[in-house]
């Protein structure tokens, strides 16, 4: 396309002017985009669009004047664009009579426009105006934006208490706006209301040290204190991962149980009945016939059933390996008592007892049995049964518990973190001011982040 060329629009220059109040030199860095500029020397707010810099307001500053941590004029790269810090302000709110202040930095790039950094107690947020309207949720204190749900955190009146540098709007010290914050960590959506007009902006939590690197500042960023409203939880993702893994492993555990129960031999290897005459004194011990325990080393379950009725029998057992002489020595009591009293019938004990002998090697075995009981109580009949390779449910319960412990631990720690976060909010604890509320919001955030795709 033939081009006689545009008339060059000229390269905009930085402007140096003198403050009409005190004569100090001011440099305007926004090429005419600033609406107000502050003279640091005499604390006057001047009209940046007026070539004579009309004075709009002069404000008082208490001793110990704020100095921006990011000096005005410093440049840093955020999201691939270089910005220059050109403005700084301090705003405060009052909650329960206690003032809280935070700082805001105005960043400028002549092509990309303005961006803002907010800092409170060492927590930083990278903020920019929203270009779409968020929709207020059905429950009064949530809003939705781009498919994400934000919880209302706080509404307060913010007053500007100190300004420095250039601003693309009419700042005045002492003016108040109603600010509402809605959080969905690491993001926060804020609304500022003056009269009828509402402006929306979105902030994203950014670590101080990343900003220090971006702006190449000396020293360290201030250490963050406490948990900030949209500070991302270092535990949130871990909670999700851990519970997913717990579910996977619990399923595997169940599958393992099915496998074990279906492949265990659970083989009866010995059973016999005996009668113990308590009237007879003398050596009551005897040995059984030999039986074989087959297969690999595994457990043996010995069950004693006795017809004791308001009586007891104690059996000294020894399971002796015929070949190696190795023995398992143990004693089992079977006792059963029952009766009636004022509260009705009662019973204690049982007529059956089982014991599991661990890791019994295969081989030929016999039992040495020696019964005991109160003398002169007649005959007690009892039956001894041995089963080989019987699966035990106890280890599965133990395994399940062990798998759950890390998940419970990490969920508890995460809930603690969230509790600290919400302690600063209008709700002083959790959105529903209850433990269930905290669980609810944690669960809904986990659900949100799952719906939003992998991080």
């Amino acid at each position, binding site marked *: *396309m*033939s*081009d*006689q*060329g*545009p*008339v*060059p*629009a*000229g*390269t*905009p*220059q*930085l402007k140096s002017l003198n403050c009409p109040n005190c004569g100090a030199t001011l440099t305007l860095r*926004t*090429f*005419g*985009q600033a*609406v107000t500029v502050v003279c640091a020397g005499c604390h006057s707010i001047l009209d940046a*669009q007026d070539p004579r810099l009309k004075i709009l307001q002069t404000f008082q500053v208490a001793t110990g004047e704020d100095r921006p941590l990011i000096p005005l004029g410093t440049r840093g790269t955020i999201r691939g664009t*270089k910005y220059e810090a050109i403005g700084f302000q301090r705003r405060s709110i009052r909650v329960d009579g206690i003032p809280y202040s935070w700082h805001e930095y105005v960043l400028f*790039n*002549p*092509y*990309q*426009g*303005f961006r803002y950094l907010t800092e409170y107690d060492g927590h930083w947020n990278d903020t920019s*105006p929203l*270009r*779409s*309207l*968020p*929709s207020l949720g059905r429950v009064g204190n949530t809003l939705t*934006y781009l498919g994400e749900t934000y919880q209302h955190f706080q509404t307060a009146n913010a007053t500007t208490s100190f300004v420095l540098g250039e601003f*693309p*709007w*009419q700042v005045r010290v002492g003016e108040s706006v109603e600010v509402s914050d809605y959080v969905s960590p690491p993001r926060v959506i804020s609304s500022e209301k003056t009269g*009828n*007009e509402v402006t929306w902006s979105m902030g994203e939590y950014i670590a101080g040290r990343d900003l220090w690197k971006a702006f190449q500042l000396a020293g360290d960023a201030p250490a963050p204190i406490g948990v900030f409203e949209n500070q991302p939880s270092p535990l949130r993702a871990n909670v999700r991962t851990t519970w997913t893994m717990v579910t996977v492993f619990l399923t595997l555990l169940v599958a393992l149980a099915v496998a074990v129960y279906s492949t265990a031999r659970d083989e009866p290897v010995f059973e016999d009945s005996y009668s113990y005459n308590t009237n007879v004194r003398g050596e009551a011990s005897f040995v059984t016939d030999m039986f074989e325990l087959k297969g690999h080393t595994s457990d043996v379950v010995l069950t004693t059933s006795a017809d004791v009725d308001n009586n007891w029998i104690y059996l000294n057992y020894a399971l002796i390996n015929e070949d190696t002489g190795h023995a398992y020595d143990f004693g089992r009591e079977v006792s059963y008592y029952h009766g009636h009293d004022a509260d009705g019938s009662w019973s204690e004990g049982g007529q059956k007892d089982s014991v599991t002998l661990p890791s019994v090697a295969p081989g030929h075995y016999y039992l040495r049995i020696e019964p005991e009981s109160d003398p002169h109580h007649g005959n007690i009949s009892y039956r001894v049964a041995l089963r080989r390779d019987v699966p035990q449910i106890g280890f599965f319960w133990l395994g399940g518990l062990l798998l759950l412990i890390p998940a419970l631990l990490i969920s508890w720690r995460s809930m603690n973190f969230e509790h600290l976060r919400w302690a600063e909010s209008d709700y002083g604890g959790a959105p529903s001011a209850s433990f269930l509320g905290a669980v609810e919001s944690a669960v809904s955030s986990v659900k949100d982040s799952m719906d939003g795709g992998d991080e």
Partner: protein
Amino acid sequence: MTQPSANCPNCGAKVTFRWSASVQTVCEYCKSILIRTDLNLEKVGQVADLPPNSSPIQVGTEGVYGSHAFVAIGRIIYEYDQGNWNEWHLMMNNGTSGWLSDAQDEYVVTFAAPGRKLPKECRVGQQYAWDKETYVVATITKAHYRGVEGELPFQYWNKVDVVFVDLMTQAGKFATIDYSDEDPALYLGESVQFDSLKLKNLRTFEGWS
């Protein structure tokens, strides 16, 4: 594309139209506002010195919006209590006209949307539906015309007070109702990120390469 040209009736300089459908242009040399009645140019006014403005876009800036390339060929500058902003007239590569609003480096691309029923007056918070989208009135700005540059698709100069109503949707769409004429005009579009326009031939700023 043919580029019709004529001579400025005021100073005689050659005036070329990059866009065949331009109705008005400004002579680059003497700043006369010229109306085209097919290639007879009539001077109707003069542009006062343009205010110092910091738009990174200039006449001749090229870019891409959606699937169309464009060139910025003119603009209207408006002034209001918070400063000023530019409405850049874009010539799309399919011959149509678009507008790129640059307000403190926030960019919105809109296109004329004729034939809709428009309210005589608006209030902040009112909702209107066009093209199956719900637009909510976000701001009402009283501005006045401050200057023109380059080629425009209609006659525009010396407007006194102009009321602009800006509407936003929940999906980033944007609408403006321009009340400068008796018949309000509607423009529909969306806000865009600077990078997505892939602008070339921008102005340079001192200290920024």
